[in-house]
């Protein structure tokens, strides 16, 4: 898939709990926090564990695998984005949460709810690196 992901500087760089996530993306890693207190692995990243409210976290790399839960073709977005584009809501394979990501297909016919997808990390560039999703190759 040769889709060119869009780049947009995240607006919540100072957000506690998200810094490591964005830094991880810059290093090519898709990370989620694990609570050092209760052991909960959770997503999205936040400053405090949603289970026990502990704020001491370690970071683990996720598989990047997931399943398409729903999708939309967006016809307007921030000016940085070329529209239209497809946005997928993806259940992470770890079962711990969902992520909304641009999905690199050209037509709606390529999208099927439940289909396996992978989170890909766009190359770090002038902007902060972001993620996108693409359909998984069969068998991968």
């Amino acid at each position, binding site marked *: 898939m040769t889709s060119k992901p869009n780049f*947009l500087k*995240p*607006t*919540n760089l100072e*957000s506690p*709990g*998200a810094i490591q*996530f964005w830094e991880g993306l810059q290093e090519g890693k898709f990370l989620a926090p694990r609570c050092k207190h209760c052991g909960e692995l*959770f*997503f*999205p*990243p*936040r400053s405090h564990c*949603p289970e026990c409210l502990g704020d001491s976290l370690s970071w683990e790399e996720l598989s990047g695998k997931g399943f398409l*839960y*729903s*999708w*939309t*073709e*967006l*016809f*307007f*977005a*921030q000016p940085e*984005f070329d529209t*239209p584009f497809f*946005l997928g*809501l993806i*259940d*992470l394979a770890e*079962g*711990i*949460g*969902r*992520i*909304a*990501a*641009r999905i690199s297909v050209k037509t*709606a016919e390529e999208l099927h*709810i439940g289909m396996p997808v992978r989170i890909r990390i766009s190359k770090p560039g002038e902007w902060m690196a*972001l*993620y996108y999703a693409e359909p998984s190759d069969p068998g991968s």
Partner: protein
Amino acid sequence: MPPKRKRAAIIGIGAVKVGRYPERQESELALQVIRDALKDAQISSRQIDGLFTTPDLQGNIGLQTNLLCEYLRISPRSMAEICCGAIAGGLTLKYAADEIQAGRIKAALCYGAVREGSIGWFKNLSQGKGWSMIEPTALQPYAAYGIIWAYALSARRYMHETGATEADFALAAVRNRKNAAGNPAAAFAKPITVEDVLRSRCLSSPIKLLDSAASLDGAAAVVVVSEEAARDLSPHPVYLQGWGLHHDPSCVIPTDNCSTSISHFKATREAAREAFQKAGIRPGDVDVAEIYAPFSSHELIIPEDIGWFQNGEMAQALRKGETEIGGRIPINTDGGLTSRGHPWAATPLYETVNIVRQLRGTAGPIQVRGAKVGLMHCEGGMMNNGLVMIFGRD
């Protein structure tokens, strides 16, 4: 039967036509509808001892009640500017009713005034100033420019699970527009067809322009008093028979698990269940309903969650006209969010105003004959929370 003691009752209503009021201040719109509601209730502003309002995003945050107390020369014993997303307008009624039922106050004014819709707010969001509203990491990069995309994901999932089509959604938009033609306060009266809806500009598939609520200006006010006072003061009081309120652990799109549905919503279901229980009635006992559906897709989802239809049945119900005036359960007889228009914080109060008119029998061309029980639903986020209120003529 529900206990008849110490219920709250609505005795006055006021609302301006939904539209654009660029030359007016929000406080002006507020005073206009407050004056109309007081006149309708036939009471003086001096009798008001409770003041409850919705957020003002134009710059007076937190000081609206101060302004209004001076402008109205009133000294309330209970007051709040309630900020809880778009459910706030409904919560003004809930907290006013609580205070009345607790015996702390005798007569409350609940109002909401919105100017320039939520344009400034969405502009801030697009500049990254509103990120905390929406899950910052899982959704933020694509979340700009409102939350239509979130509702679109919900609508698509609903289609997947139930087989509903975009043409089914369009039926709800057409029904709302037909109803709006009979409501002088509605923003849009020009008739539309299913074809018009399907051909309108796509915003975020499957949601198109004519499936969507227009963010507009408006103001509405309601006077709430005790049951005892209502019997003395009003020829046609409308009683709050019960309400239900629920918040699901989710923020717009639920992201921190893979099990929370976005095709149906627990908050709506729980709020409705509690409201029916408190009112001592069943869904089938409701004669007329106002539901808070920002997009036509959710005109199908919400009635299923409230309990009038099983999951996936609403498409057929729309085709059979069951939610039209004269049907089994007339919904959004004033045009709903998509055609009455959506001055967001005031919307639940507009819904309430229409229910009161319906129960008084003064709704004119949109009157549901013999309506005795009315239901008002509103929500915040993307159905993350829900408030259901049941009103009755007795």
